[in-house]
């Protein structure tokens, strides 16, 4: 059964769409009902991080095995991850408008870090289109991708934790503590994370198959 993760992703996401709106959540000032955005906004970012990790692994494989297929996969994973960062940004912006009072703030290190990371990955796509030779492109972009992944983690995982951030789980605290979430919320949040990760893998799978069809037609 090779489609198990696709079925699970649909079940999990449907469950979070329904129960995420109905289940009881902590009553908090300012956040009010928007605390439910945790089920939708955060898992999208987790899917993005997952895809970038897949991209990193494929890039390392491309370097060690000298295989063009791995290079194609790394590119597709980065594309899907980039695609997930866009709804992540817009949903975060809307949420920020109604809780922090602004669409975007440069005071928050996580927002700045995400903006820089997206630029780093845009540079990855541009780099790929600027090299014509396939083998050369595979090696250069794989090396750059390893660098991009490390930089992204520094910018969105490490630096926000060193200073104060408006995001929960930053400014020295571990994320998802008992202050941010209760057990009722975990019941929806974890399936949501898994659901969107599986969903991103599904998109990645389709993208790969289209790429390989294209490659065969070009041969």
């Amino acid at each position, binding site marked *: 059964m090779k489609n198990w993760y696709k079925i699970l992703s649909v079940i999990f996401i*449907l469950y979070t*769409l329904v129960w995420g709106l109905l289940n009881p959540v902590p009553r*908090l000032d300012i956040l009010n009902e928007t605390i439910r955005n945790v089920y939708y906004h955060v898992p999208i970012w987790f899917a993005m991080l997952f895809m970038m990790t897949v991209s990193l692994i494929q890039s390392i494989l491309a370097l060690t095995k000298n295989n063009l297929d791995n290079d194609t996969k790394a590119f597709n994973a980065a594309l899907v991850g980039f695609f997930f960062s866009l709804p992540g940004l817009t949903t975060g912006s809307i949420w920020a408008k109604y809780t922090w009072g602004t669409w975007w703030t440069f005071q928050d290190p996580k927002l700045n870090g995400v903006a820089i990371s997206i630029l780093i990955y845009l540079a990855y796509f541009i780099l790929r289109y600027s090299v014509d030779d396939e083998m050369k492109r595979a090696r250069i972009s794989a090396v750059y991708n390893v660098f991009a992944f490390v930089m992204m983690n520094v910018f969105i995982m490490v630096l926000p934790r060193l200073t104060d951030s408006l995001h929960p789980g930053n400014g020295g605290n571990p994320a998802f503590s008992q202050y941010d979430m209760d057990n009722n919320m975990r019941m929806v949040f974890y399936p949501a994370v898994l659901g969107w990760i599986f969903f991103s893998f599904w998109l990645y799978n389709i993208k790969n198959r289209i790429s390989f069809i294209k490659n065969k037609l070009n041969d």
Partner: protein
Amino acid sequence: MIKRILTLVFLLSALFSSAQETVSSPEMADTFRSDGKIYIVITVIGMIFVALVIFLILLERKVSKLEKQINSK
């Protein structure tokens, strides 16, 4: 004796009246879920997602067909 009973009654009444005072808590959409037909909205959201998934499945089947055509050549 009557005085003592009266004081007890007044004390108890004071206790109950304070218990009935609602504690002010953050505003939540409480009535929204009880009578606001929220289930219909949830059904609509679910239907949209299901429609997207069906589209994705059909797209994937087309990709599979192309794969078969290419591999048989």
